[in-house]
């Protein structure tokens, strides 16, 4: 009887040690194997990476070529990722080369004001449904209508003061740069 209990204890200890070792050696697998993992552990892979879908069927008068479509999608998505990062960390340098003109000036001003006030903001879980509505005859100007959904979090000195899921409509102007499409204007509107 005593022997049995001892065996059971040593078996449990072995299982525990094996589990701990497994966890140390393969942390990713261990997390995935745990069904009741905590919300922090089971956070989405990257909640700041925007999801962007681009529809070009309504663009005109010039048709958007496939290569242009891919480039615009890539560059617009990247611009949003960087904009979010810049607003979160109050680093206007992150916008270099992606935003130009008014878009760059406005966002830089917002970031500088945030920094002065000790605030920052985050745009999490972004989903963008983007329609290209105008592509100029010479291909040097593109207007997008972006219906963006995200969780807007505003913090003051690290304390969250606002957390709201918002749907915002953006009118965006993009122009081709040397090696990418740059955002020149990004203006939110009540509706399209």
């Amino acid at each position, binding site marked *: 009887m005593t022997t049995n209990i001892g065996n059971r204890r040593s078996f449990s200890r072995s299982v525990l040690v094996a589990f701990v070792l497994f966890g140390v050696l393969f942390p990713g697998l261990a997390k995935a194997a745990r069904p009741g993992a905590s919300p922090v552990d089971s956070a989405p892979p990257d909640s700041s990476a925007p999801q962007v879908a681009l529809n070009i069927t309504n663009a005109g008068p010039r048709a958007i070529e496939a290569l242009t479509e891919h480039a615009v999608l890539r560059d617009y998505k990247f611009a949003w990722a960087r904009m979010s990062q810049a607003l979160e960390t109050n680093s206007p340098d992150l916008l270099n080369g992606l935003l130009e003109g008014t878009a760059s000036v406005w966002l830089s001003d917002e970031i500088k004001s*945030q920094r002065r*006030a000790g*605030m920052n903001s985050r745009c999490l879980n972004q989903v963008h449904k983007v329609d290209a509505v105008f592509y100029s*005859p*010479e291909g*040097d100007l593109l207007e997008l209508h972006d219906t963006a959904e995200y969780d*807007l979090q505003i913090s*003051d000195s690290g304390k969250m003061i*606002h957390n709201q899921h918002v749907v915002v409509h953006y009118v965006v102007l993009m122009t081709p740069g040397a090696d990418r499409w740059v955002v020149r204007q990004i*203006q939110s509107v009540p509706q399209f």
Partner: protein
Amino acid sequence: MSWSINTRCSIRRQARWSLVAASLLVLAALASAQDVELRVPSTVTAGQAAAVTSSGSGRATFYLLGPSTAMKRDAQLGEQILLPAKELQAAGRYVALMCTDTCSSAAFFVVAAKPASLTFVAHPSRAPVAVNDVISGVALPFDEFHNLVLAPQDVDFQMSAKGGAPVSHKVQTKDGVAWFRASSGKTAGPLQVQASINDVIARRVVQQVASDPCRLRINGQRTSKGIEVATEPVRDCSGNPVPDGTIVTFTAKGDGETSTVDAPVKQDVARAWITADGPVVISAASGVVMGNELRVGGGK
């Protein structure tokens, strides 16, 4: 025993009352915290001051986050908070927050003011004459704070060439953009292209240049240096002289041999020297146009 029961009852009653009182206090605190109501204007025109009001009383912190601003200031609940025009220049969505223990929020939009400038792009910088839909222009109205004006505006596109009557075309902006496409005129020279909204005007110049040569005629004669061959003034189908540098290719055939020489047009004429002793047949071509054939006899 009876005393003991009374005491227990009274303790229970006291505990119940304490619980009720505590609950009421919590509810009151929650109610007072959630009662702060922010009233913001539905829309504000860019560059105009606005006011935000709140209900309640006591000290609070006010925040405003917009497309080019983030501000924080102490505020008194129940009093009007003035938002200076300088803070409301960028069009877009603004979030106002009033925080005590908890925060209340409200959003409003700033919309563009009236057009103060036109971004106007005209293409191409040089356009051949008499070509359909070769000239295009895109105009975008912006207000004085560089906001894109999205409310429909009538843009008047006007094109005028030297000596010709101006041609006007009105287009209403859609989503902040107006555009046109037009054919080039028949005369080479500068074409003034203008876009205007009331007194806001943007001007561009498109240089209309001759199209491809329309017909080629060549003349030639034997000289001591060889055969000098030259075109008559080279013009397009509208009669405009083609630009200098347009290449004319001369081909000479004779004695079973063919030789070619490229000559640029200079002051309307292309000229070349061909060395051949025997009789030759010389022809000329430029672009898709062939010229006449010229027969030159032998030099001996």
